[in-house]
């Protein structure tokens, strides 16, 4: 029995009117799954999840969370609706202590619940407990990511949405972040993430989508997707062509 938590259908979104970056993308996330969105640079992966999280204006399509229409809801209402988002960068409040970073996210919890919930986060992330008085800006990249994830989890979201959680981290921290996400999923949290680091993300994911030019082009079981020839073609650029044309696609996309 699969229960759909997040159902995104035919989503069109972009920062400027008439210039959609996400062009009719449809994805679903089932309860307890880790779903990975892959794709070349400039495919609109980040824009897709930012649109889902209420950060990029949506011009068409629907986002359903547990059957409830949350399309285009203001970003600050998303945690209350059950969707917690972890941005790629600047995802902690740098001059607030680790503890205050967690406390400030407890706004939607009942006042009495907050201290217990913070303790639960410390139990799950002992590193944060050790650094509870440290300004978040002084944490290492991996710990910062940990804090950002803890901040998002603290409100018991129905789905945790992450934008490239391994970006900019050293290899040691990359594996730490993916182990952390895998552990979080085991505790029953549903996860949707966008990743550049395809191999590591597929290793912990259940299903994956490949997004190309703002639309999902391929969907599959994460563990087999890496070997799927379609992936090589869609994700790594047109492999049959010359090598420098692949690079061309990448720079063109980034711009």
């Amino acid at each position, binding site marked *: 029995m699969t229960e759909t938590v997040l159902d995104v259908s035919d989503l069109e979104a972009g920062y400027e009117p008439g210039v959609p970056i996400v062009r009719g993308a449809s994805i679903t996330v089932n309860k307890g799954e880790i779903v990975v969105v892959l794709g070349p640079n400039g495919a609109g992966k980040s824009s897709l999840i930012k649109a889902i*999280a209420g*950060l990029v204006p949506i011009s068409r399509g629907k986002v359903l969370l547990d059957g409830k229409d949350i399309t285009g809801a*203001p*970003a*600050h*209402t*998303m*945690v*209350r609706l059950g969707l917690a*988002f972890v*941005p790629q960068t*600047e*995802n*902690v*409040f*740098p*001059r*607030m202590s680790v503890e*205050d970073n967690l*406390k*400030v*996210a*407890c*706004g*939607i919890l009942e006042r009495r619940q907050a201290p217990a919930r913070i303790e639960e986060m410390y139990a799950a992330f002992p590193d944060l407990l050790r650094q509870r008085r440290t300004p978040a*800006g002084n944490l290492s990249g991996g710990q910062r990511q940990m804090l950002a994830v803890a*901040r998002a989890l603290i*409100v018991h979201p129905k789905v945790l949405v992450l934008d490239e959680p391994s970006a900019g981290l050293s290899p040691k921290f990359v594996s730490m972040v993916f182990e952390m996400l895998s552990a979080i999923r085991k505790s029953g949290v549903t996860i949707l993430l966008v990743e550049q680091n395809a191999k590591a993300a597929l290793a912990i994911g259940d299903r994956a989508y490949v997004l190309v030019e703002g639309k999902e082009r391929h969907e599959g079981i994460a563990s087999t997707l890496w070997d799927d020839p379609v992936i090589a073609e869609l994700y790594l650029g047109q492999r049959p062509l010359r090598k420098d044309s692949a690079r061309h696609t990448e720079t063109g996309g980034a711009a």
Partner: protein
Amino acid sequence: MSLQFVVDGLLTGSMIGLGAIGVTLTYSILRFSNFAHGDFMAWGTYATLAVVGAIAAMFGKVAPIAPLSFGWPLIVALVVGAAFTALLALLLDKVLFSRLRKQEQAIIAVMGSFGASMALRSLLEFIFTSRPTYFSRAIQIAMPVGFGIRITPDQIALLILTAALVLGVHVLTTRTQTGRSMQAMSQNPALARIAGIDVASVVRVTWVIGAALACVAGVMIGVLVQIRPLMGFDMLLPMFAAAILGGIGSIPGAVLGGLIIGLAEAGAVQLIGAEWRAAVSFVTLMAVLVVRPIGLFGVRER
């Protein structure tokens, strides 16, 4: 040598500091320099004066609380005046600042606030004329407290009020959920929204705190000096100096900055000559900024 300048400086510094809290909060959370902040001060003072007049009309003459120069009407009026100033700030934000803040360039909101400042000031002159007025014309006898210092009961009361308000605002901003939301907004507005913070309500709280404190500072000036439509505008430069000196965004910094500017001015008046008042306070400001460009409690932007 008389140490009278210490008391004078602390009093001036309290007024500047209370005003500078609003300046620094508006700058760090709403991200623009509000040049109308001084006029909130003046409007709050005149509102308080009007309420004092209304109470006098209703209850007749009320004896002051000995040994102070004022009675309960001024205390009640101050609360009403602070609420009025907060409403004025919220109204101005709704009709003017909220639109201008949406613009890409912060200078548009700054210029808008300059316009609002002039309009508010002229309106006050229009309603109340530019002739100075007073809460009380009674003369208080200053008590000698040693080291050549004399202080009036009013001055003591207002210093205590300042200390209590500063402590209260500090606790509010560092220990409560509202305060943490304000900090979050000033450090990363985008993430604050993602973390579920209602930006609009944080903006409202910011205006209310800033405007209410401006009103208190204005009433202090009214009690200790005099009430004039230009009283707030004249405080604008010292308030910005205090906010910058203390480190923009820092409430303890704004208060300390205010006290430093106040003491420097009072010291200059007593030790060098009154004409050097502004010069000394700005040389102090520059000296601190040369050593520490981000201000005393300032933080480097990422």
